[in-house]
Structures are given as C-alpha cells and as structure tokens.
C-alpha cells in the first residue's frame, strides 16, 4: 500500500500528493524523490520546472533550449497547448517503511519547459502511472492510498 496525503498549503482546496522516486537515465545517477500531485485529468506524468531545476538539477538554459531535446510531445489542456520534452524514466512507489512497492521502468516522463507562469506548479502524476493502482481518497481524513 502506498500512502499519500491531501496538502492544502498552496490551493483553495487540498489536493492529493504522493512522494515517488524517479530516475531519468543519462540525467540522474540516483533516484530523486518528487512530491507529485495526483491528477486523474493528466494523460502522462510530468515534471514542472520547480522540480526539473530544483530537484533533477537540469540547468535552466538546457530546459529553455528545445534543440537539446530530441523527443517532444504536444499536449492540450485548459491553458492551451504545450510541447514538452519526453525522457525515459524509472518510477519507484514506496511502502510507508521505504521499501519498494512497485518499480515501473517502461514509461516516460514529460519535462515541461519553463514559462512565465508555470515555475511554481507541482509535478503531476498522470494516468500513465495511476492505471497501475486502485486509487482511494478520503478528503475528511486527508489520506490518499494507492493500492496494487
């Protein structure tokens, strides 16, 4: 069982978050913990600049240069269309004691280039990951559970 929580720090309503370790081959050497917002409206998981720059440690100049990223994917949303960079990724979902509940090595992650408005956004865990779980959220108790 993977446990997350509802976090109200930045939003009108609390939103579900869960810590996931990610490894981006050729970019990271170790697993890096990312506090993802769970987003059932998102098709593919993504890292926003606060995490790509602040945790994955990609240089801002590298993120701003689309020529450095050979794989791209355009996604549509309420804010319009955005072209993200696509990179292979390994995801680790942890039990509460830190042991690995599930390792997913067959998926990618999208890196969202920085814009004037997106630097404070959370990274998003989309349906490409959520499809592996039964998702249970209890708003009153503030608990989110991802069950295998």
């Amino acid at each position: 069982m993977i446990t997350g929580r509802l976090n109200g720090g930045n939003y009108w309503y609390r939103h579900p978050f869960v810590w996931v370790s990610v490894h981006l081959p050729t970019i990271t050497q170790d697993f890096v913990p990312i506090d993802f917002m769970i987003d059932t409206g998102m098709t593919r998981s993504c890292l926003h600049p606060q995490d790509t720059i602040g945790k994955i440690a990609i240089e801002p100049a590298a993120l701003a240069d689309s020529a450095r990223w050979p794989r791209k994917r355009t996604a549509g949303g309420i804010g319009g269309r955005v072209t993200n960079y696509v990179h292979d990724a390994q995801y680790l979902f942890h039990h509460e004691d830190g042991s690995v509940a599930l390792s997913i090595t067959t998926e990618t992650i999208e890196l969202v280039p920085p814009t004037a408005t997106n630097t404070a956004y959370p990274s998003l865990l989309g349906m490409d990951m959520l499809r592996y779980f039964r998702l249970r959220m209890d708003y009153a108790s503030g608990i989110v559970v991802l069950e295998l």
Partner: protein
Amino acid sequence: MSVAPSSASALRSWAAAEAEDAFWREHYPAYLKAYPDQFVAAAKDDGRVIAADPDLLRIVQLIRECGLDIQQVWVRFMAATPISLAL
C-alpha cells in the same frame, strides 16, 4: 550507457523524501508569513534559509552565490495567494 541506481539509492531517496516532508511541515507556516509568494531555498544540512525570491531562476543564481549546489538545498514556493489550478 546509463547504469540503473542501486536499491540503496531507492532507500536514500525515500529517506530524503521523509526529511523534506518533515522540514516543510514544520516550517511552511512561518515561511509563508516571512516570504509570501516567493521561492524559499533552505540548506539540507542545517535547515537555514539561504535565499528567497519570487523568481525560480534567480533562486538558482542566489544558491550558487552562496557556494552551494542546487542538490544541497530544498526549494519550495510559498503560495500566500491561493492558487486555483486548471492543469
């Protein structure tokens, strides 16, 4: 060729997540008042705030000017103005 990280790396990652989570749970309310609508960078080793700025790219620069690497700090945005998301 890229080598997959070890299982020890996975445990370190989880420990790092727990440490960061505990840090922000303890300090977020105070930093929200002190640094509204700014990114705050805090040193992982002793928790001291080393930089605060509304601009993420400026924070990266300030961290380097302190002689630290981005991976030696925690960075989080202190959203005093509630965000309504439509992602």
